[in-house]
């Protein structure tokens, strides 16, 4: 049984210019102990989808879903207090900006022990012991001393680790890590990824890793979901995704990586992601797609089969070539 089930999650925001759909029918199942990565351009709704799941969006957001369940418990119908028990303890999140999610006015120790008090009801001595243990686990030197430090006294990498320590303090079954290493140097990034993988191995924790670093995806994820302009355009096992991408966006994204190209001029994707006011009528990727036909510009595609990574495309790519492609047009 999947640990997390998300079925057709849609999020729209009320904005000055009207309703804006930031997440459009996204589905995701996570098995216990699995590492799934969510990738996609900036603004494609990766963070918003996860914040919706955690019930952390402002009132301007409208969230709908066919199913949202954690451990078979329906998150849409459970009470607020039940939800609060799950979030932060069984299901935890590391947010994209560590400095905005740590409170600058409280010490690291206080912030760590508060979570433990709320969720695990430990006494003072137990909490302190556990806090030191956690800081040690995330590789912070001299943890006893750091308990009295304020966030601004620590480096970015250290704060990021404190965030992780807080997120894992109650041994969550699911950890959602939103760009956990983006602001960090590669050597620190390597340390943090190793730490997350260790937790996943030792405690059987499931991990959702949101990132736009395809290198990180290749080296850590088992499965990958690709998002574009709020939609999920492809879902595959990591090896399949890199060797045989089925959606033209995934293919173009991989081709534009400097390390996968031999020529000085990279095959780049022309143009930019559509915004609120220039959403195309048909396929959302069609204005930037090399294979787009009249059909693509006018009719929104439906998801292809499971074998084709559920690619949201009229002509899913197989071995680098579009299938069922009309003969008269040459891409």
């Amino acid at each position, binding site marked *: 049984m999947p640990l997390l089930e998300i079925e057709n999650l849609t999020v729209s925001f009320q904005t000055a210019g009207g309703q804006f759909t930031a997440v459009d029918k996204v589905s995701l199942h996570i098995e216990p102990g699995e590492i799934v990565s969510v990738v996609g351009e900036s603004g494609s709704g990766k963070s918003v989808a996860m914040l919706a799941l955690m019930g952390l969006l402002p009132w301007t957001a409208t969230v709908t879903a066919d199913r949202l369940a954690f451990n078979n418990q329906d998150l849409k119908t459970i009470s607020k207090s039940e939800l609060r028990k799950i979030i932060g303890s069984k299901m935890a999140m590391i947010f994209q900006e560590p400095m905005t999610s740590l409170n600058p006015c409280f010490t690291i120790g206080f912030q760590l022990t508060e979570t433990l008090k709320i969720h695990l009801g430990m006494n003072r001595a137990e909490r302190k012991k556990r806090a030191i243990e956690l800081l040690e686990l995330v590789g912070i030197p001299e943890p006893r001393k750091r308990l009295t430090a304020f966030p601004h006294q620590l480096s970015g990498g250290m704060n990021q680790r404190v965030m992780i320590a807080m997120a894992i303090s109650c041994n969550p079954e699911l950890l959602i890590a939103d760009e956990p290493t983006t602001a960090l140097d590669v050597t620190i990034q390597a340390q943090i990824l190793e730490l997350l993988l260790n937790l996943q191995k030792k405690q059987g924790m499931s991990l959702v890793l949101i990132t*736009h670093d395809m290198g990180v995806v290749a080296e850590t994820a088992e499965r990958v979901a690709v998002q574009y302009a709020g939609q999920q355009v492809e879902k595959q096992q990591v090896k399949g995704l890199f060797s045989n991408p089925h959606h033209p966006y995934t293919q173009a994204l991989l081709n534009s990586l400097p390390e996968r190209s031999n020529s000085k001029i990279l095959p780049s*994707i022309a143009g930019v992601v559509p915004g609120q006011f220039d959403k195309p009528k048909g396929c959302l990727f069609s204005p930037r797609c090399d294979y787009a036909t009249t059909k693509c510009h006018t009719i929104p595609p439906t998801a292809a089969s499971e074998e084709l990574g559920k690619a949201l495309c009229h002509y899913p790519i197989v071995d680098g070539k579009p299938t069922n492609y009309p003969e008269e047009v040459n891409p």
Partner: protein
Amino acid sequence: MSGEVILEAVGLKRYYQIDRGAFKKPAVLKALDGASFKLKKGSTLAIVGESGCGKSTMARLVTMIEPPTAGQLNIGSENVTNASAAVRCNLHKKVQIVFQDPYGSLNPRQKIGNSLEEPLLVNTPMKKGERREAAQKMLGLVGLRPEHYNRYPHMFSGGQRQRIAVARALMLNPQIVVLDEPVSALDVSIQAQILNLLTQLQQRFDLAYMFISHDLSVVKHIADEVMVMYLGKPVETGSREEVFSKPHHPYTRALLSATPVADPFRSKERIVLRGELPSPISPPSGCTFHPRCPSMTEECKYTAPELVKKGGCMVACYHPKTY
């Protein structure tokens, strides 16, 4: 002529005084502690290293935003440090910079056109019409459209703003462009567009680039020469081929092995460094990398190693890997 040395730095240093409150002596922070390198026409020198190792400091010295504490900087045949005001003014035009943040580097209240014309207004006797023509031509060169001339920065995407920043840097026909993390804030697909633009402009105008980045896959793509820095000092320099295929310094090797590779079929050994970058105010003794170094021995703790030739590279290490 391509390949001609256009900028040379010898033992460049930049120290900062840090006040530590009324009762403590001010400390000295060695942001850059002796860097020597040459920049050639039409080629790219990449500066890599972790946050705080002095990359942006180097950029500020090379673009003459700040004077060096010690060392010498030559641009063309001129020694910048002793140059007269008039000569310096001329040199300023030759070296331009593009900053990391495509959002912060443009004035939000200034139209793109005016923003591009500003360097011409300040530095040249060009008339209004000429300036406008030059700005519109430049917009075309960086892949934007003439109608963008009258728009404000907020109307552009991150990638477009970075194009504008590049356009602005090129307005005075510089010979050297310092690019401080020019693609770090961009999506992969937009990053590719900007890298292509930089490559095309370099070929067209024979530009010398000083390319600052912490993303080694980007550096591997764009650089001709690479300089790896650690705590204000170069620890390894060499051609791209040498540095990437035969890295000698343990720090270079750690950086390379920590860089994730977008290939799930590849399994690689990884050197995971322990600990954080030490404080530059009180750097470790001897080789400043020794507390994190997997190959550290006693001698590393006492005297700092000098840069010496090793294969095709210059390496500052007592225990470089040999090939």
